[in-house]
C-alpha cells in the first residue's frame, strides 16, 4: 500500500489526523503532511478510512 497527498487541495479539516495520526499530520499552515508514504499493515484500515473521510479528496491510497 502506498499513499499520496495533494496539499493544494487540502482544506485542513483534520479528518486524516484524527483517524490515522501515525500516518498523517498537519503543518503550521494546517495543511496535510504525509509521515509515511508506505504505511505499516496495521494502519491499513485507518488509512483507507482517512482517505474516504477526507472532504477534499486530497488523499489517494494506491494498492500497488
Amino acid at each position: 500500500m502506498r499513499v499520496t497527498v495533494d496539499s493544494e487541495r487540502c482544506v485542513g479539516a483534520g479528518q486524516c489526523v484524527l483517524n490515522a495520526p501515525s500516518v498523517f499530520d498537519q503543518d503550521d499552515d494546517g495543511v496535510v503532511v504525509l509521515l509515511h508514504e508506505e504505511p505499516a499493515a496495521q494502519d491499513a484500515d485507518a488509512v483507507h478510512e482517512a482517505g474516504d473521510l477526507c472532504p477534499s479528496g486530497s488523499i489517494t491510497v494506491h494498492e500497488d
Partner: protein
Amino acid sequence: MTTSTGPTVVDFPLRTPEEPLPLSQYAGHRRQSGLVQSHLPNGVPIWLVTRHEDVRAVLTHPKISANPDNEGFPNVGETMGVPKQDQIPGWFVGLDSPEHDRFRKVLIPEFTVRRVRELRPAVERIVDERIDAMLAGGNTADLVNDFALPVPSLVISSLLGVPPADRDFFESRTRTLVAIRSSTDEQRATATRQLLRYINRLITIKDKWRGDDLISRLLSTGQLSHEELSGVLLLLLIAGHETTANNIGLGVVTLLSHPQWAGDERAVEELLRLHSVADMVALRVAVDDVEIAGQVIRKGEGIVPLLAAANHDTEVFGCPHAFDPERSERRHVAFGYGVHQCLGQNLVRVEMDVAYRKLFERIPTLELAVPLEELAFKYDGILFGLHELPVRW
C-alpha cells in the same frame, strides 16, 4: 412535470412538533430511484438529495455552487436576523473555489487538531464556570439558556480575544440572534449591527496592540482587509454558536438515557450523526447541467442536500435511528462534505466532549424536569435543536 418516467414530486420536508427532524419522510425519499423533486415554501422547484452517496456527490461536484448570487440558488427561509449574508465581504461559505480557498487557507491554522487540543483547558474552564453558576442557582436550570448557549459563545469570545469585561455583552448579543421565538426581527438586526460594530472596534484595537489571539494572528497574515476580517469573524461566531449549542442540548437528552457514554469520544461522533443539527444548511445550485444519481439537474436548478437524511441512510448506517457509539462506521456528513466541510469541527468535538463529561461527572443526579414528550424542539428554523431543556438534580 411529473410523467410516468419522471421524477417523484413530494412536499417540501415538513417539520412538525411531532417530527421536528422528518426522518420518516426522508426514508421514503431515499427509496425513490434517482432524485426527488420538491418545491420551496415560495413555490420554486428544487431537488432533494437524501442518499449518503448522492449528498457526497453533490457537495464535491465542481459544477455545483454554494454561491447564493447564482441564479436559482434555493432560499429556504429567514436568515435569523443576520443582514443578507451574501453581501458581507468575508462570508466565504457562500463562495466557490478558488475565491473561497483564500479565506479558508488563512483560517485553517487556527483550527488544526493540535491547536484545538491546546484550547481544551480553556473550554474546560468555561464549562466548569457555567456548571458552578448553575449549581449556585439552586437545583433546577434551563440547560439550553444556562449552559448550551453560553458555552460556545464564551469559547468563541475567548478564541477571538474578546476581553473578559466584554464577554457578557458579547454573549447577550449572540443570544439575541439565536432566540427566534423571543426576539423580533428588529431586535436581531440591532444585535447583529452591535456585534459587527464591536468586532470592527476590536479589530482596530488588535491592529494597534497585537495579542495572542485569533484576530491578532489573522491581522499579522496581511491576507484579509479589515472589512473581510469582520465578515469572517461574524461567520465564525454564527456558524459556531447555535449549531454547537443544539448539539450540546440534544446530546444531553440522549445521554440521559445512556449516561455510561458521557466522556467517551465515540459518543460525540455518534451524537453528531444521530442529531444532524445542520440538516438543511448546505444549500447548492447547479451552474451547468450535471447528473446526480442518474438524474439530470439543469443549470440554475436549486439543490437541497439533506444531511440528516444521508446520516440515516441504511445503506451506510445499520439501525440508523439507534444511538450506537460502537458502530464502526464514521462516514457521517454532519459537518458537510467537500471544501466547505465545517472548519471548526474539531473545536465542536472538544466542546461537546467536555460539556458531556463535566455535566455527568459533576451533576450525577442530572435528570429532565419535564417528560421527554414535552420538550420544545425547533421545527420552525433552519437548524434542529431544543428551544429549552428544563433539568433538575
